[in-house]
């Protein structure tokens, strides 16, 4: 699972020349993304409470656009990764955990962090340690999906895979939104990065609509209680006024549909029903739902 890369990570405030095709983001939307990912960090800190050293929290560092290949090379010495897709969206991404952080999570979970060397170099993980990292990644992704869903982005993590060959995996030339997080463990700063497809920007833009949607849900609740007046119809005819004016007691009209009736509101046929005339009640058994405008 670990892959080793040896390039140094660029400084955060480094000014870089604008490259053609590099996506841009409006300040308002950047602020929205910042807010969401501060929440992601808080939720992660809670979800991983048993995996983090006591009193330590994951913090959101910032976002930038980078090609996925560059991100993979600059994220740290060794990376544990999982690719994921968000349910009900086209948004996908990757979770990249530095080897230092993975090691910290394992040692904390096993309760031996204090005994561990501060040296960042580490040996290969045992099976149990690998299982612990996998469980931590599962928790991270589940929490990430839930936080995104709460913000109106997707409906949770649809699925994830630790295989880099998975179809979910991002292409190396893709520009992705790199969302960096850190865990301060002096003298080290351990890193965790989400690389997410840039269409998340539009989904966050939809966040405004989603907020409106919450309002419309309450409108929807009111609407759902509105009364609808319904006629139970056994027949309907169009006839000239002259014919109507000659109707008299004893005249018989054949009801065209036998016992079949329908429910109608404002000239719209809602559904067919069978009418049974009981002793003291009339029973309507719904036969088929349909929507038909009588004028059709």
């Amino acid at each position, binding site marked *: 699972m670990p892959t080793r890369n040896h390039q140094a990570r660029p400084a955060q405030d480094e000014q870089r020349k604008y490259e053609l095709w590099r996506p841009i983001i409006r300040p308002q939307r950047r602020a929205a993304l910042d807010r969401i990912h501060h929440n992601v960090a808080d939720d992660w800190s809670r979800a991983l409470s048993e995996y983090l050293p006591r009193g330590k929290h994951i913090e959101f560092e910032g976002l930038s656009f980078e090609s996925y290949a560059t991100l993979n090379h600059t994220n740290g010495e060794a990376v544990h990764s999982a690719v994921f897709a968000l349910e009900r969206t086209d948004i996908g991404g990757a979770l990249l955990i530095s080897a230092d952080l993975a090691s910290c999570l394992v040692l904390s979970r096993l309760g031996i962090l204090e005994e561990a060397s501060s040296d960042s170099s580490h040996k290969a993980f045992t099976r149990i340690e690998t299982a612990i990292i996998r469980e931590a990644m599962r928790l991270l992704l589940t929490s990430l999906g839930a936080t995104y869903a709460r913000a109106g982005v997707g409906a949770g993590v649809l699925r994830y895979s630790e295989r880099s060959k998975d179809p979910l995996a991002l292409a190396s030339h893709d520009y992705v939104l790199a969302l960096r997080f850190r865990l301060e463990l002096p003298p080290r700063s351990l890193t965790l990065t989400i690389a997410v497809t840039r269409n998340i920007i539009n989904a966050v833009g939809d966040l405004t609509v989603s907020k409106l949607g919450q309002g419309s849900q309450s409108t929807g609740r009111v609407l759902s209680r509105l009364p609808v007046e*319904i*006629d139970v119809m056994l027949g309907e005819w169009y006839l000239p006024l002259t014919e109507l004016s000659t109707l008299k007691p004893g005249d018989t009209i054949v009801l065209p549909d036998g016992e079949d009736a329908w429910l109608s509101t404002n000239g719209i046929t809602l559904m067919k029903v069978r009418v049974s005339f009981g*002793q003291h*009640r009339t*029973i309507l058994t719904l036969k088929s739902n349909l929507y038909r405008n009588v004028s059709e």
Partner: protein
Amino acid sequence: MSANKQWMNAANVCLSAVVARICMPVDTLASLTNGDIIEIDVDLGADPQVRLIVQGRTVAIATVTERDGVLRATISQCGPESDREPEKWDLRKSGTEGVRNS
């Protein structure tokens, strides 16, 4: 028919045979599916009746009879009298209908 009343031959109106007029909330209506049963508190009993309605007004009351599998509505009352006692069939306010899901 005088010439100035010939328009009545051409003027079609919609005559509806209505068993009952009921009222239910949008969400109840939307939840109805095939096989559901709506019980309405209209005691049509052995002498089931329908209202013949034009433009929202009852113009006649008809008794429903069945012969050879065909339902017929035989008019028993015509005119303004038939528009009285709407509470017998108009259940919008009494709320006596119930929906039973299958």
